[in-house]
């Protein structure tokens, strides 16, 4: 059974609706470790000696966060800067993360249509995920496509519930190994695994 670590980064969690729902659902699952970065490191003093063993103990690492300025919140970046050390995460001898999977679970304010050549944001969402993808690659990890909740402010309760259920199914599926991960890596959004009808891969 795959062990899952959710690194959760949200500077204003108390005002979040989407992540509150997703995280609450994830908390109810067994054998999922949830690491709330803004709660743990309010002063941004991430301690690598504390974080690295945690990563070593898990197989699938998920960055769960809102999508800020085409990236994660600042503390997530601080975490990456400090924890992914040379000689441990990457470099000739940095093999600690080898073979693990890394993926993002994100919420965006914009709708899916805003991400494309004609959209408000100009580029497909996956292109903005490149820094994460390449980070995974540099650290000898496999990158999973993101699980995306688009249009977060406009979601109806029903839609939010659907996303939450899909997230739970996704985590359980990943734990039990019911997905063919190399094949899953070829989907555009990981949402396709759990709700095949909804987000269709666009030409990305």
């Amino acid at each position, binding site marked *: 059974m795959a062990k899952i670590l959710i690194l959760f980064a949200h500077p204003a969690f108390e005002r979040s609706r989407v992540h509150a729902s997703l995280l609450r659902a994830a908390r109810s699952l067994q054998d999922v470790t949830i690491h709330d970065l803004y709660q743990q490191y309010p002063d941004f*003093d991430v301690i*690598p000696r504390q974080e690295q063993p945690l990563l070593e103990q898990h197989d699938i690492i998920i960055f769960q966060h809102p999508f800020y300025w085409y990236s994660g919140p600042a503390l997530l970046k601080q975490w990456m*800067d*400090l*924890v*992914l*050390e*040379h*000689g441990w995460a990457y*470099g000739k001898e940095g093999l600690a993360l080898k073979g693990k999977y890394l993926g993002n679970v994100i919420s965006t304010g914009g709708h899916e249509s805003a991400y494309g050549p004609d959209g408000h944001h100009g580029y497909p969402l996956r292109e903005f995920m490149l820094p994460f993808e390449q980070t995974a690659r540099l650290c000898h990890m496999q990158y999973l496509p993101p699980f995306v909740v688009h249009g977060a402010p406009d979601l109806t309760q029903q839609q939010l519930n659907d996303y939450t259920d899909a997230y739970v199914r996704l985590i359980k599926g990943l734990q039990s190994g019911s997905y063919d991960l190399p094949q899953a890596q070829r989907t555009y959004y990981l949402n396709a695994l759990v709700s095949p009808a909804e987000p269709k891969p666009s030409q990305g």
Partner: protein
Amino acid sequence: MSNESFFYQALVYLATMVVFVPLARKLNLGSVLGYLIGGIIIGPALFGFIGHGGQDLMHFAEFGVVMMLFLIGLELEPSLLWKLRAPILGLGGLQVTVTAILISGLAMLFGLPLNESLILGMILSLSSTAIVLQIMTEKGQMGSAAGQSTFSVLLFQDIAVIPMLAIFPLLAPAGLSSAQVEDHSLIAHEPAWVKTLIVLGAVSALVAAGRFVVKPLLHIVARTGLRELFTASALLLVVAIAVLMTLVGLSPALGAFLGGVVLANSEYRHELESDIEPFKGLLLGLFFIGVGASIDFKLVLEQPLLILGLVLGIMAAKFAVLLGLGRLFKLSGEQNLLFAFALPQVGEFAFVLFSFSLQSHLLPQHIVSLMIAVVAISMALTPLLLLAHEKWVQPYFGCTAKPPEREPDKIEEKNPVIIAGFDHFGTIVGRFLRASGVRTTVLDLDSDRVDLLRRMGLKVYYGDASRMDMLKSAGAEQAKIIVIAMGTPEKNLEVVDAVKKHFPHLQMLVRATGLTDVFDLMNAGVLHIYRETLDTSLRVASDAMEMLGHRAYQSQRAARMFRRYDERSMKSLSAYRDDKQYVNVMKERIEELQKLIQADAYTNMLIRDAGWDRENAEERN
């Protein structure tokens, strides 16, 4: 009264309390029922330990009701009282009027003359403040809508006693002049308008005295630091109010209530509360015992059906009126039932009014003795009635009635955080929490400072936070957190001990000065300990580094790391409790600290954030 008989009586009453109240509470019957049963058992009906002293005892113990109203007043700030004006005047007024008319009508149906019927109606419309408030407070129902309505009605009734006493003489049957009516007040023989003026004057004098005399006086007393002197002053205050009110012919209970309201805003509120509380409890207990003992079982056995019928009839009539009024005032079904179940008995004022009526020849002897038995039985039935309500009625409303009412109390201000000690340390904690919208109750022992801070508009109370009753009246039962920031380590430890013993649910955040008291606090099991100089010293240090040209972010980050390290080593140090061993370990640790600072730890902290290392950057490029 000779000493011997005094001690004998004290023995009987105190033993009754100590035996029956815990027993009743064990059986989930509540303390009031315990007192009542105790009274019945030691009364003339069964063992006769106290003969027919029950009535005399009640006259004495009625002072407990005065104290209770003083305490209620203390908890009610004038603004809150003003908010309650509609239920007090509307609900209370209607309850008294409608019930009085209904019962008078019933009495006339039984063939009593009009004036006697009216007197009966008025007396029986009253309910028992002592019993009802005691029970509802014990069950934590005072904050609910029903509790508020009940309180409003009781308050109105207490006020209504005064006009009743004034009206009664007018109802005297022809041939009896009102001169025969006994009136204890000094102003009995003045004309009506003078009386009114004197009464108004007395009330304003009371309010003014509360503001301008009592507060400074309490301040002086508090500064003497003699605890018993403060208790004496508190008692003196209540007694003085009662005497003044009696002199001008007002109800002492009402005066005490007013006095309480006047002092509700004062810094001595909590201290007064905790000083009066035990006396009130004792006297009310005696009062309930008196009620139990005064039930004339001989009379009851002679006419059991008549008395039973009267009790049930009166209570049913009052119950119906209450239920109707509750609906009129939009109480929800479940709250309305609680309200109606709480108030259908006849109150302690009935004893006063009945004996008054008897002396004034307004009511014949046989009706009065019958009624006194009826009143006492209806009072004794109240705890049972509320118990029955809780057991059999309330469960039907299972989902709406969340058993312990978690909503914030409407009457009292109960805050989630208590700050004990408000010198420069506590002040900052309090100011920050206040600025962040977190409500705090502040206790401080320095009466001069309390005075000053209150003049600046801060709500600070004078009181010793190491006393259990003080903590209780500061709301420790409802609070979540206590910040213990007293001036000396010894005092902090005292508060810690009191909190651990009586309010273990409270999270303690404790101020520490030096190393020794950190260890004392650790040994006492305190989890959150704050050395008062640690953070400041480190800020000085990191600022110094910045001034020397170190980058600000790294200096401050190093300071935070240092603090974490230091707190960790504190914990391992505290394992050594023996003093001698401690000295050695301390020496060792100092050396170790020195070593650490000199060697890698220091450089580590500043430079070795490997993620930002040069080699890291190289590989990325």
